[in-house]
């Protein structure tokens, strides 16, 4: 009998296949495995739904961006429609009649000259780095801020 037990202890790893481990409450275990599979599938469904929602949100945000760009353009148009007075002239009513038309006419070619200068291509210089959309917006914001501070300072 003792010899038989010793023989059993000497078995190598290959013989482990002949041993079994009992698992209590197998039904509950199976149920839990199936439930976790179900939940994993729910998680994948969540993922797919989130992807769809994000795509919709992206499209909606694109629409919002277009609307805001149009609003910005309209704001600009609105501003252009307002008369361009020199502030100093405004405070001196006598000057308005004499200088306002002349001043405006003189200012127009200046703007044109500046535009022509901008069109000239740079000579043998490295191409300027493309500004990001965020940088462009920062610049626009800075321009508006400076205009606002000018108005407040007066």
């Amino acid at each position, binding site marked *: 009998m003792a010899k038989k037990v010793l023989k059993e202890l000497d078995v190598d790893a290959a013989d482990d296949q002949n041993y079994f481990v009992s*698992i209590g409450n197998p039904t509950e275990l199976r149920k839990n495995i199936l439930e976790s599979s179900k939940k994993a599938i729910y998680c994948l469904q969540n993922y797919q739904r989130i992807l769809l929602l994000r795509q919709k949100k992206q499209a*909606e945000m694109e629409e919002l961006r277009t609307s805001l760009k149009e609003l910005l353009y309209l704001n600009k148009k609105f501003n252009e429609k*307002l008369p361009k007075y020199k502030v100093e002239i405004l405070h001196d009513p006598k000057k308005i009649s004499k200088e306002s038309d002349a001043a405006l006419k003189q200012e127009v070619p200046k703007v044109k000259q500046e535009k022509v200068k901008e069109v000239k291509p740079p000579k043998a210089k490295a191409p300027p780095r493309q500004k990001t959309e965020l940088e462009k917006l920062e610049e626009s914001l800075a321009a508006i801020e400076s205009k606002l501070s000018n108005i407040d300072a007066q």
Partner: protein
Amino acid sequence: MMPEKNVPVFVKINDYKEILDIVDVMKQKLKETRVSLDRIKELKENEDAEISDWEKNIAEITKRLSFIDSAFFEND
């Protein structure tokens, strides 16, 4: 110096009409913007709900896996 905002500004009648049109279009655009923003908000809420659901499902899997683990561990 007088602030610029206190000085009256005179706008040509043609420009004035155009300004009114522009303001109308701006109002319309602003309405569209608000609708768009509301939709984005709604989508974000839906996304948050999905993520919360996701979290619950993962918690459930963790719980069940812990049960499975303990069922095996009991035999050690």
